[in-house]
């Protein structure tokens, strides 16, 4: 078992525009797909806040010319992607985890324990390396037990009665006496079909034809179980080294070959190979029960209306699938309001197509809820401190168009802290006739960077409406929105 520890994952994870909305666990899971190049069996550490990726590398060392070369290759690839990692290779999951976290410090090289190392190799490590609960560790510390080696010299029967089953379980897991199952993140596909082109081809009509055969086959495989495709993956292999892979998510499960084909084809257009295609593979990674609906032969007015609603919702699902698969899952979103006083954080976008990864869905939901609660609590306190409501009551109090980054302005006002009189933006001077405000928006000190702004709605001499604010810290003015 190879353990790759990414210390302080919440800090070192990528935080680009696309990754911004993911939880830490989701971000780590994204890495798993990439890690499948090293081992087919990759999983996350079984913990509520995972920081480790675990690879089952049994029998893989010869492919990489030895275990040392394998770990070196993995470490190099991770570092090339600017990750900080610590690697350890051992017989068991527990031992690999222990050595990765508490093994020899100060070296970049991976620690490799010899086969059949048992508990003796772990003897000098501290007790924390056993992944015990903090209470058990504290009790052991109080008894003067600090290292794993000290435990193995104690009578086994006494350990169980004094410290519970947990301690023995962890010891046995590290020693390999009790098997620990690695929860593989990548589930085996629910349905799969592939097509080999002989000879390899770059003709679109042939690829299209093969694609429709493949779609029919996977739909057939699911038909017995009355399930529809929710997410599928398409892989293409070129004649030599070229590879392409993309995944297609659906708004509602579908078992209609024409619909699936169309969605896959939309994506296929953007993933062309530089060389003739030798193999095409479709694997269904998530399914859901199909919605059964009976058509009425003599439908009354209510029946017709219900049928129309059904048709409409199917048409909408098709539209969302098309848009999401061509433009990306993050491009087709639903907005959700958040009770946050700061205008740019008052809402959040969520993809219309939910992420349908099995097993961890509940954990993710819990994580999300936790994040949400954090967001909610802070601004409420903030609003009370600022003495304002986070939800404005006036219909025209928020602009329809809000700039993601406020634009810096040059403003003239009569009184130093008073309302603006003239402002200049983009070389154009606007004379202000009416102002409303200030509406003070202030966040709490616990948010960094915290904001304190005085917002003004202004009407120019021509009657146009803008939303400006003055930053209280330095008195600078910004244009934040336009009442389009």
């Amino acid at each position, binding site marked *: 078992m190879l353990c790759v520890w990414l210390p302080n994952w919440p800090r070192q994870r990528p935080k680009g525009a696309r990754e911004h909305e993911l939880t830490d666990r989701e971000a780590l899971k994204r890495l798993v797909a990439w890690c499948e190049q090293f081992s087919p069996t990759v999983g996350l550490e079984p913990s509520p806040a995972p920081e480790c990726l675990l690879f089952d590398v049994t029998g893989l060392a010869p492919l990489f010319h030895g275990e040392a070369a394998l770990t070196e290759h993995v470490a190099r690839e991770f570092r090339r992607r600017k990750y900080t990692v610590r690697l350890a290779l051992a017989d068991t999951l527990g031992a690999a985890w222990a050595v990765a976290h508490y093994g020899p410090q100060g070296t970049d090289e991976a620690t490799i324990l010899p086969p059949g190392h048992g508990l003796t190799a772990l003897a000098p490590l501290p007790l924390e390396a056993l992944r015990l609960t903090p209470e058990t560790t504290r009790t052991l510390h109080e008894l003067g037990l600090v290292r794993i080696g000290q435990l193995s010299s104690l009578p086994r029967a006494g350990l169980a009665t004094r410290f519970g089953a947990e301690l023995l379980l962890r010891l046995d897991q590290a020693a390999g006496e009790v098997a620990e199952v690695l929860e593989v993140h990548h589930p085996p596909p629910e349905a799969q079909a592939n097509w080999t082109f002989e000879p390899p081809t770059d003709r679109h009509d042939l690829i299209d034809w093969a694609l429709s055969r493949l779609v029919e086959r996977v739909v057939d495989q699911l038909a017995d179980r009355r399930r529809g495709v929710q997410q599928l993956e398409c892989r293409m292999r070129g004649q030599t080294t070229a590879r392409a892979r993309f995944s297609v998510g659906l708004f509602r499960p579908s078992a209609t070959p024409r619909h699936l084909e169309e969605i896959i084809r939309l994506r296929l257009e953007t993933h062309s190979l530089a060389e003739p295609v030798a193999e095409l593979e479709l694997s269904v990674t998530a399914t859901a029960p199909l919605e059964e609906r009976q058509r009425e032969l003599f439908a009354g007015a209510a029946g017709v209306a219900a049928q129309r609603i059904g048709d409409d919702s199917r048409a*909408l699902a098709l539209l969302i699938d098309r848009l999401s698969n061509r433009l990306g899952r993050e491009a087709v979103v639903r907005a959700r309001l958040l009770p946050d006083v700061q205008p740019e954080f008052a809402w959040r976008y969520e993809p219309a197509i939910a992420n349908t990864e099995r097993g961890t869905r509940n954990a993710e939901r819990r994580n999300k809820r936790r994040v949400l609660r954090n967001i909610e609590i802070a601004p409420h306190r903030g609003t009370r401190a600022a003495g304002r409501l986070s939800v404005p009551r006036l219909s025209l109090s928020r*602009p329809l*168009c809000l*700039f993601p980054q406020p634009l810096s302005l040059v403003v003239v006002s009569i009184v130093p802290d008073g309302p603006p009189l003239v402002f200049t933006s983009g070389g154009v001077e606007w004379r202000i006739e009416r102002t409303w405000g200030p509406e003070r928006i202030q966040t709490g000190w616990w948010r960094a960077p915290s904001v304190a702004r005085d917002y003004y709605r202004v009407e120019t*001499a021509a009657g146009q409406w*803008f939303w400006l604010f003055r930053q209280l810290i330095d008195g600078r003015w910004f244009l934040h929105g336009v009442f*389009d």
Partner: protein
Amino acid sequence: MESFEPRSTDSRGQLVAELRQRLRQLDQARRPAGEVSNSTGCEPLDRLLPAGGLSRGGLVEWLAAGAGSGAGWLALVAAREACREHGPLLVIDGRGTFYPPAAVLAGIELERVLVVRVEQAADEAWALDQALRSTSVGAVFCQSQRLHPRVVRRLQLAAESSGGLGLLVRPEAVRQEPCWAEARLLVRSLPTSAMKLVSPCLTEKGRRLRVELLRARGTAGGRSVDLEIDDETGVVRLATELATAAAERRSRA
């Protein structure tokens, strides 16, 4: 085809009106969607439009005279009305500036809104086309500066084929371009300071807009209406004509 007899000059206006009606009928017969019209959420604006509202199966262009003119707000209110009966609202956000809390203030339920965020002009045109072709969408709302006339023509055909409604908010500069939409409205904000000179009792709340019908199928453009948006409720209504009345009284005296 029945022929029209030449008439006297006083009935000429009537003839023109009849011909317009006939043209409108011919135009609508071409579309399979039939004559379904939506309110714009503002009665005076409905009266300005020949169909008594926005007819489904077409585009409506709202030309904004400068930034912050209020055209987007009027289009959004119209979208809200269209979505009450006909499915969800699709917002194509090509500028990345759409602000959902403002939509909530306009009376739109966010559960019934889907936002499509696009960067490239080609993607924007494609997403608009797909959305307008779908029979399941109540209205499509898009604020765009970069639609080519050819694209607009295609979008109009897409909306005709599905009976969808597209609300495009565009800059005033496109006024010179050919109009393929069902109606083209110019929205100009009115300064309240000018009003205040003639009527000091004018309410300080809300904003004033002038909507001019530049073109609509089956009618001559050129008519306009002054509207007022209530600051508190967001209701769009006919602007009070207090100022004009006062001015008239003064001139009479």
